[in-house]
């Protein structure tokens, strides 16, 4: 069941984004850049989910009274993303506050610079 890449181009892009984020996360020693990589990962997953929910020629899943019901895109992934976005926002906020504290302790956000620290 190999599909032409053009069909699933969104999926492919999402996966590549995911890998880019992952690479940033592990390669950068700068904490802020790590967090950015993390956010790229999150966004790529959302992108993937939203593409999963897509329906060719589907309208937004909102019933407008008096308008004949047309095929609508899948609302469930959108609801999932709504939840996942909030989760991502909370995680990022917490992470940023940790980074802030880290900075105020060490005066830098570079993880490698403070490797050796035995209280």
């Amino acid at each position, binding site marked *: *069941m*190999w*599909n032409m*890449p053009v*069909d*699933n*181009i*969104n*999926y*492919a892009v999402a*996966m*590549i984004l*995911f*890998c880019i984020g*992952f*690479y940033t996360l*592990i*390669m950068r020693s700068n904490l802020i850049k790590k967090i950015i990589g993390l956010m790229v990962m999150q966004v790529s997953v959302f992108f993937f989910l939203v*593409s*999963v*929910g*897509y*329906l*060719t020629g*589907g309208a*937004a*899943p*909102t*019933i*407008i*009274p008096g308008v004949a019901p047309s*095929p*609508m895109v*899948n*609302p*469930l*992934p*959108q*609801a999932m993303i*709504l*939840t996942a976005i*909030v*989760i991502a*926002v*909370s*995680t990022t*906020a*917490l992470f*940023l*506050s*940790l980074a*802030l*504290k880290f*900075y*105020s302790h060490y005066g830098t956000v570079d993880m490698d610079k403070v490797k050796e620290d035995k209280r």
Partner: protein
Amino acid sequence: MKKILALLLTCALAALLLYVVALLPPMGDADNPTNRHVVPRYLEQGEEEAGTRNIVAGVVLNYRGYDTMGEMAILSAALAGIFAVLGTGRKKVGNAFIDRSGVQFSFISRTAAVLLIPLIMLFSIYVIIYGTDSPGGGFQGGAAIGAGIMISTVAFGFNTAQNRLPHHVRMILEGTAISAFFLVGSAGAVGGGNFLTYMLPSLATQIQATFRTAMLLVLEFGIGITVGVICTSILFALLREEETYNVEHAG
């Protein structure tokens, strides 16, 4: 060395994921499992079952309201976590609140803010109220509220904004959503349904729909208030940490 290893790891991951992508059903196809299995019921009966024209809101608040409760809990937990990391600000560090946040007291920004903020609030309330029937809802409205408060912070300075919305008030407000979910859910449980049931068999049929709408509104407002307040609190906490740092280091 580490570079190579990371590169290899990433490439392996990419290969795996792209391999899967090639096997996934074609995107947007009408007879994908995603479009065949559960969703049709949402789309067809969503309006009368869940009582929302906006199906997404119906899914978020009604079919999968439990997820949303967990999500609200995550927001509150994140705020609590930020307090846990940065401190709640009860501990005054010297004269911590010398105001360095943004443009302050400039005439233009103040006037603009005075003009904008009421509109923003009004709009956010509109978004919240009509969230069940049109695009929008608690999150969007709450975000708008948060944006309004941020504007006021920029315009009138950190201290003013914080005094308008002091810590304990925010502490009380940030629990609104969870409390709303708890009460609404318990109402369902008491009324003969399950937790988070809105169509109560114990009620007369003609007021059931009304009751459901009321419950949904309560939830929307709870979510909106919580989101707005938590955005504000996070902003304030981060600002305060910056102040503290400046005081400690810049002296």
